């Protein structure tokens, strides 16, 4: 990460502007035990209270790492019921990084966030249709299968 991903100007911009970046050694206690770190890189997006909402283990190049940051940001807001803020992060991920590993999961969470803000289950069905059409091999297409039955 330090040799390839963190020197990338796009990575530096999003981390510095949109996150509070923290580095800890893998043996730093008690935080390492609190986060169950057994291998590195171990990357977390946490809320301001220190609760993790996204965990990734292993190297990611910038083109995959930035989407995971946005996914973590969206999931953090989603978990705190800040659905409009979550939607903004998911929309940005889907728009800017549609070929990334994180994109299908963002479509899933966008659909759920839209449902939570509108109570309209049609958004769930649309989410499944998009995943089935654009990411048919994604696990997230499978996870939305029940939504195809919605009216």
């Amino acid at each position, binding site marked *: *990460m*330090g*040799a390839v991903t*963190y*020197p990338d100007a796009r*990575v*530096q911009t999003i*981390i*510095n502007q*949109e*996150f*509070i*970046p*923290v*580095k*800890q*050694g*893998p043996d*730093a206690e008690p*935080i*390492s035990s609190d*986060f169950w*770190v057994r291998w*590195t*890189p*171990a*990357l*977390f*997006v*946490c*809320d*301001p*209270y*220190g609760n*993790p*909402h996204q965990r990734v283990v292993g190297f990611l190049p910038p083109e995959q790492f930035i989407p995971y*940051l946005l996914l*973590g*940001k969206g999931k*953090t807001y989603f978990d705190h019921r800040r659905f409009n803020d979550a939607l903004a992060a998911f929309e940005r991920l889907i728009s800017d990084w549609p070929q990334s590993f994180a994109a299908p999961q963002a479509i899933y969470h966008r659909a759920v966030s839209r449902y939570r803000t509108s109570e309209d289950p049609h958004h769930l069905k649309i989410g499944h249709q998009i995943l089935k059409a654009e990411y048919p091999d994604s696990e997230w297409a499978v996870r939305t299968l029940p939504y195809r039955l919605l009216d």
Partner: protein
Amino acid sequence: MSTAITWLEDWQAAQDRAKAEDKPIFLDFFKPT
């Protein structure tokens, strides 16, 4: 290689700043080589 990312090392200070700025925290456990 040095980077322009302004990393914090104090976990509590990071949470305080995250609350003040209403931002999520990015936490990296790294193994220096």
